[in-house]
């Protein structure tokens, strides 16, 4: 069976989630590979959530937030803009290609941009192939055990 990337998308409630919604109601087609998790702010995305997504089998993670200056909480996304590059370094240290983690700004009016970013990310992960980590096997044993 052909590889279909599993991508977890953390979307901020105020801009990107609404942007995704707009893409939907506008009937814009985009790859169905991103599983969306709505967060109140891209700054609410604890780096542990992202590591956990990789641990549980995500091939890629995309975080979307409001454009800089537009944060509903003034500066949440300024934390994100530092956190994601830092986290890319950390996952690279773990042997995960940093291109598997991506940050994009998508506003509530950018349904087309949401679709574009999702398609691009899906293609990127498709090219990188499935992510296999030693921890995946251990987590399965753990599940089977309990």
């Amino acid at each position, binding site marked *: 069976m052909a590889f279909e990337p599993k991508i977890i998308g953390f979307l901020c409630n105020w801009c990107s989630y609404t942007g995704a919604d707009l893409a939907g109601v506008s009937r814009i087609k985009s790859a169905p590979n991103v599983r969306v998790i709505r967060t109140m702010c891209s700054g609410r995305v604890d780096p542990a959530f992202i590591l956990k997504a990789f641990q549980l089998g995500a091939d890629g993670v995309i975080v979307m937030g409001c454009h800089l200056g537009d944060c509903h909480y003034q500066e949440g996304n300024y934390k994100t803009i530092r956190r994601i590059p830092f986290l890319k370094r*950390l996952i690279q*240290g773990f042997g995960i290609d940093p291109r598997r983690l991506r940050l994009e700004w998508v506003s509530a009016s950018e349904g087309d941009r949401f679709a574009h970013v999702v398609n691009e990310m899906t293609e990127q992960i498709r090219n990188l192939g499935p992510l296999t980590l030693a921890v995946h096997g251990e987590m399965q044993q753990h599940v089977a055990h309990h």
Partner: protein
Amino acid sequence: MAKPKLALYWAASCGGCEIAVLDIHEKILDVAGAFDIVFWPVALDFKYADVRAMQDKSVDLCLFNGSIRNSENAEIAHLLRAKAKTLVAFGSCALEGGIPGLANMTTKDDIWKWVYKDSPSTVSNNGGTFPQTHSTMSEGAIEIPEMWETVKSLDQIIDVDYYVPGCPPQPDQIWGVIEYILSGKPLPPKGTVLGAGEKTCCDECPRERAEKKLKKFYRPFEIETDPNKCLLDQGIVCMGPATRDGCGALCTKANVPCRGCYGPPPNVIDQGAKMVSALSSIIDAHEPEEIESILDQIVDPLGTFYRFSLAHSILRRVEKL
């Protein structure tokens, strides 16, 4: 009434936890008076066969230190789990892999190649001789334990009742735990972290904190720090914000940044993720280029943030590249 039985064991560890137990000083006599010590390889001459001969659940308390690094560590962990009513993961290695867990940054092959072939102290191993689990010679055959590819924490292989963190756990905290158990009071819920606090190391640290805005990080040798001010405020990567309290901020009081040995604080599962979060919040830059150049100054984030907890982190080990 017979005295309760106590067993202590070291798996992959340095012996520091044993020293810490002895560092309760003359109170060790109280421990020996209150407990019947039935197994303690570092101090008493009991053998594995003696433990195997014990009835299941006949040992009241087992303090288990060290990570699980080879087949012997695992075998004895399973054995002691069967024999002990209450089993405590004692010290950073048992809790979260500890320093030996840093081996998860590389592979068994690379470690062996370095140790038995490439290191400058290996004078000649031209034949490429490596330890074998089974070898035969004229005197007979010997078996040695098999080293594992990945270092594990104790709770990744057996059921653990309680956790006592620290590298090593501080003697006053150890005594507190023993005293509590001896008091006969009802034991706390399974899984409780004993002998430590519920906040972070920063909470115990006496240094003055200001609002943090950092454009530059320093390695400790690059800067003379103010002994009264928060080390992180001065640009030193200090693990305090991602580390459980309980040690009394020993390191920062000695002008050394916290290394994170008490493990993650409550509700945190990954010290590295927490440090990424904490440091990202205080870096004073908005432009991607400037952010990258500041991040360049944080040397070896993996080894620094997960110095003690790599084996128990979310991803557990570095993938073979």
